[in-house]
């Protein structure tokens, strides 16, 4: 997994590439998110459009990142869910927890 970071209108966008699974640097997203919070960046958008695979550990990673950000008064939202990831979040009732978007502009505006 690799993570690219960019900023738009005060929102930090993490473009995540590859697998979010048990083998693949499991804590990477969580660590990245923690760093951002420490730097005072509390509006975080995870772009998951280029994620090729997610297992239950990966879902756990997204949930941990979410609770970390929320506990510190920030917002973490999801962009470009693949069909398979959407299904995993739906059956685990996490679609009701996460704000998710298919349009980047709309997602960024939602933080204002």
């Amino acid at each position, binding site marked *: 997994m690799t993570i690219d970071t960019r900023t738009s209108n005060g929102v930090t966008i993490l473009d995540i590439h590859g697998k979010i699974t*048990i*083998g693949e640097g499991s804590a990477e997203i969580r660590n990245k998110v923690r760093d951002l919070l420490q730097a005072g960046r509390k509006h975080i958008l995870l772009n998951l459009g280029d994620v090729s695979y997610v*297992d*239950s*550990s990966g*879902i756990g990673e997204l*949930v*941990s990142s979410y609770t970390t950000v929320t506990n510190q008064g920030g917002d973490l939202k999801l962009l470009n869910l693949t069909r398979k990831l959407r299904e995993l979040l739906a059956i*685990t009732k*996490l679609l009701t927890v996460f704000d998710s978007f298919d349009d980047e502009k709309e997602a960024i505006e939602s933080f204002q």
Partner: protein
Amino acid sequence: MSSNKSGEFEISFSSDIGFLDLVQSLSDNIGSMLGFDADSQYWIGLSLRESVINAIQHGNKEDRSKRVKVRFEFRSDRLVILVRDEGHGLKESDIPDPLQPDNLLKPGGRGIFFVRSFMDSVAFNVRPKGGLEVRMEKRMNRKSEGDENDD
């Protein structure tokens, strides 16, 4: 298996997470050999992956001298997959429900839930000699959607 879809295929490997991709691509190849559609192959592969992770982590406690065994049984109407470890097994009543409000935001506890969601049946069996055996089944759709005279 061109001639006859019966028989079985077994694998056995050291408790190393590094084997997961190998096991999963084997599962994909078996799924495709049996004529499962791409989505079914995907969910079978994920279910197997979750069960093998559990066998390595919870069952064998990542002790690389302990082994995980996976057995694929080819029946005329379904694929049966058995995953065995050398651990202490589990009590089904101890498996947490990840949809419980208290569990919804926990980082773990969704592996078995995925297996139960995507396979047609799942059974847990603590073996007399020790170790858990997870038995999961996926039925095959003998008729494709485009079949004639099918209602």
